[in-house]
């Protein structure tokens, strides 16, 4: 009894200490639970991108119409999506990172507009277009993570700057592309620049005043990574001292990559933040012997302190640029008769992982595209020396084949089986809805030198669709408990738009040609499509206003998809031309067979430029008035 009294007294004390902070958080939680609003990029802390709205359903979605549109005034690639908080919608743009507040009560009238002044020299250090993945909301503030790594808090009602802080140094190749995430009393941001020798980190700032609460690096000594050698575990075992630096040669970890530009999730009961770290740098694996921890890893950090509870490296010593930054989707599902707290992640490396998010135990690791060939499987035998590691196939190992050797026919390509485009999860079907890439590559690593602020890549990459296929993407439904594909729809181009699942039984996503598509969550049957003004790499969201459900998406082609696909990155005609026009069939057989890996698709498609052009536009859909 005495003990209980002490305990409750200390809880009261804690509440008093953190009183204002937890109030802000509770307010945000309440908003997030209201399906009429869309107050965070991923819909909820768990990153499910699921909405309880059901006015639009499988039987009426075919009647969907465009309700209104809005031009962002910016041409480059538009990732992320708008937020709806109360009667206002917040729309962001790529560089120059303009933010608009639109009044939903007055036909989208612009209430305020914020356009930061940034040094345009940040533009060329953004490897794959000047994308930005959206703003965050909490505590009456809009948080914007600018290209130059400035994190700024704006008054949500007026757009006035409340505080701002510079998180990194653009002069060193560090840039901001990821959305800020607000959990409890903190706002979290990561860093981009894996192709510029940046050592990745994640920063947590207090939402009140912009003061840095903690920063945890992806690589370096334990004091930098916030790893506790005894308490931090990987696959159930303590990681031991200097678990990162001991897996690098010399000082390479200082320019070791591990960028953190994906989507973050949070479990309030465990107080843990989940995210992934990206590729080690350079792309030439021979220049960085060792496992290169903790690049390519799933992280679970305590929100208050940043301390690492557990970490799991999916792709030790990456040889293909399989960034591990994709989102971690948190679900509670019944596995073998037991309700478990799960984390599901669709990695660039082509494996769909399900882990126990409390302990980091690996439960499922299966290929979510059958063409994935760089590894036979992930070793699930707990007694094996290679437990939890992918079993790499020598023929596709750019390390094994060495520098100056062109390793061919590797699937997936560096784009990954999925890139940043987030998946969705419906608790009704218990399926994940995953927009994927269906692309393979040749990869030739060679030596490069590091210069601060300059590209640091070290591999030539050529991409094409898998042999015999004409589609470069799939939209799939995935069972995370068993690691099996439930259904799969072919997409002509990579499916690079984030998915939305709804209680109406409809799943939405956008395509690179610019279609917003609606499919049946159970079967994948297409129910509706509409071609928006430009290719979609943004994420679909939904909200309700004035008793009506709306579905909205940003179009505006670009991003990594826009680099290659727009120009016809994947045109196998090139390989054909080498054979027909130049080599006249005289080349050695080996060269010939592999260079024609993409020939199966000749004539099956043309460059994306034939389908769409640039331009940022928000398109909002609704059912017609009866």
């Amino acid at each position, binding site marked *: 009894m005495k003990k209980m009294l002490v305990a409750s007294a200390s809880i009261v004390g804690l509440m008093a200490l953190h009183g204002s902070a937890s109030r802000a958080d509770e307010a945000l939680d309440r908003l997030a639970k209201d399906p009429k609003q869309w107050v965070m990029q991923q819909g909820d802390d768990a990153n499910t991108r699921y909405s309880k709205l059901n006015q639009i359903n499988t039987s009426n979605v075919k009647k969907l119409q465009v309700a209104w549109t809005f031009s962002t005034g910016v*041409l480059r690639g538009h990732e992320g999506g708008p937020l709806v908080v109360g009667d206002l919608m917040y729309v962001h743009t790529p560089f120059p990172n303009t933010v608009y507040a639109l009044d939903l009560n007055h036909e989208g009238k612009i209430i305020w507009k914020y356009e930061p002044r940034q040094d345009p020299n940040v533009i060329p250090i953004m490897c794959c277009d*000047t994308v930005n993945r959206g703003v965050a909301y909490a505590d009456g503030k809009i948080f914007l993570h600018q290209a130059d790594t400035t994190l700024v808090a704006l008054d949500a009602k007026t757009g006035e700057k409340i505080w701002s802080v510079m998180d990194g140094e653009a002069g060193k190749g560090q840039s901001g592309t990821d959305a800020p995430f607000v959990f409890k009393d903190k706002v979290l941001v990561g860093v981009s620049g894996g192709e510029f020798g940046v050592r990745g980190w994640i920063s947590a700032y207090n939402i009140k005043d912009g003061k840095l609460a903690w920063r945890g690096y992806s690589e370096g000594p334990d004091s930098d990574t916030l790893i506790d050698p005894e308490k931090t575990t990987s696959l159930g075992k303590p990681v031991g001292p200097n678990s990162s630096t001991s897996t690098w040669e010399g000082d390479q970890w200082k320019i070791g990559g591990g960028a953190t530009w994906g989507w973050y999730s949070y479990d309030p009961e465990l107080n843990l933040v989940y995210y992934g770290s990206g590729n080690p740098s350079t792309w030439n694996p021979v220049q960085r012997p060792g496992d290169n921890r903790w690049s390519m890893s799933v992280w679970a950090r305590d929100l208050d302190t940043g301390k690492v509870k557990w970490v799991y490296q999916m792709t030790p010593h990456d040889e293909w640029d399989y960034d591990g930054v994709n989102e971690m989707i948190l679900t509670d599902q019944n596995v073998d008769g037991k309700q478990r707290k799960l984390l599901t992640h669709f990695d660039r490396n082509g494996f769909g992982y399900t882990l126990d998010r409390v302990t980091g135990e690996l439960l499922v690791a299966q290929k979510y595209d059958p063409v994935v060939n760089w590894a036979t499987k992930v070793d699930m035998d707990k007694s094996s020396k290679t437990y939890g590691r992918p079993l790499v196939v020598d023929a596709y190992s750019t390390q094994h084949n060495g520098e100056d050797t062109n390793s061919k026919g590797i699937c997936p390509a560096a784009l990954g089986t999925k890139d940043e485009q987030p998946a969705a999860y419906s608790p009704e079907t218990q399926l994940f809805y995953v927009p994927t890439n269906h692309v393979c590559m*040749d990869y030739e690593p060679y030596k490069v030198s590091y210069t601060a602020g300059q590209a640091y890549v070290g591999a030539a990459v050529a991409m094409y669709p898998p042999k015999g296929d004409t589609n470069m993407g799939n939209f799939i439904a995935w069972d995370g408990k068993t690691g099996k594909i439930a259904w799969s729809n072919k997409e002509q181009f990579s499916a690079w738009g984030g998915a939305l699942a709804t209680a109406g039984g409809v799943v939405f996503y956008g395509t690179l040609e610019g279609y917003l598509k609606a499919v049946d969550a159970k079967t994948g049957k297409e129910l509706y499509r509409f071609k928006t003004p430009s290719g979609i790499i943004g994420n679909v969201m939904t909200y309700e206003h004035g008793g009506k459900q709306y579905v909205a998406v940003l179009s505006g082609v670009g991003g990594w998809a826009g680099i290659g696909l727009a120009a016809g990155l994947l045109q196998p005609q090139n390989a054909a*031309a080498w054979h027909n026009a*130049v080599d*006249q069939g005289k080349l050695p057989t080996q060269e010939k067979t592999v260079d024609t890996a993409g020939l199966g698709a000749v004539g099956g498609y043309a460059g994306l430029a034939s389908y769409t052009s640039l331009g940022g536009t928000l398109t909002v859909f609704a059912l017609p008035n009866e």
Partner: protein
Amino acid sequence: MTIKHWKFALVVLASVSASFISASSVALADGADDPAVASSENGKYADKDGNPTYKISPDGTVDWYTFSGFRRYHSDCHVCHGPNGEGSTYAPALAESLKTLTYPDFVSVVTNGRNHVDAANDKVMPSFATNVNVMCYIDDIYVYLRARANNAIPGGRPPAHEDKPEAAKQAETSCTGIK
């Protein structure tokens, strides 16, 4: 380190003075329109004006520098300018640009960068002056793109190439510092 910077200083100076020359004689495009091989030295080919050019043998074998340029381009340039010099949603197709861009102008833009930022544009080409992965291979990248601009080779990886000349190995070591 000092050697590297000294070399770069030379490149920058050379390109600046060269662009003055080309600016004053626009009509006489600096060999950009005639890529025929006029001379060669240690496996490196030049046109009648002494500008670097490519050599494609009838069996499709390309000279070392065209091949090397293909690789370097697809590491440091293609992330903006697209594969095979075909452009992206936000950077020009160099296989087109090099139909009119002269060798000195090419070197000048790569070295000094170029900005086009206004209400409708946010295009910035960075300066690569300090990037050894680009500057030590500037001629390689140029001849590769020149070959693309003249439709001398298709996109994709050249399937066969001449051996790496000893001179290329030595220049690489002294320029990059990598052995």
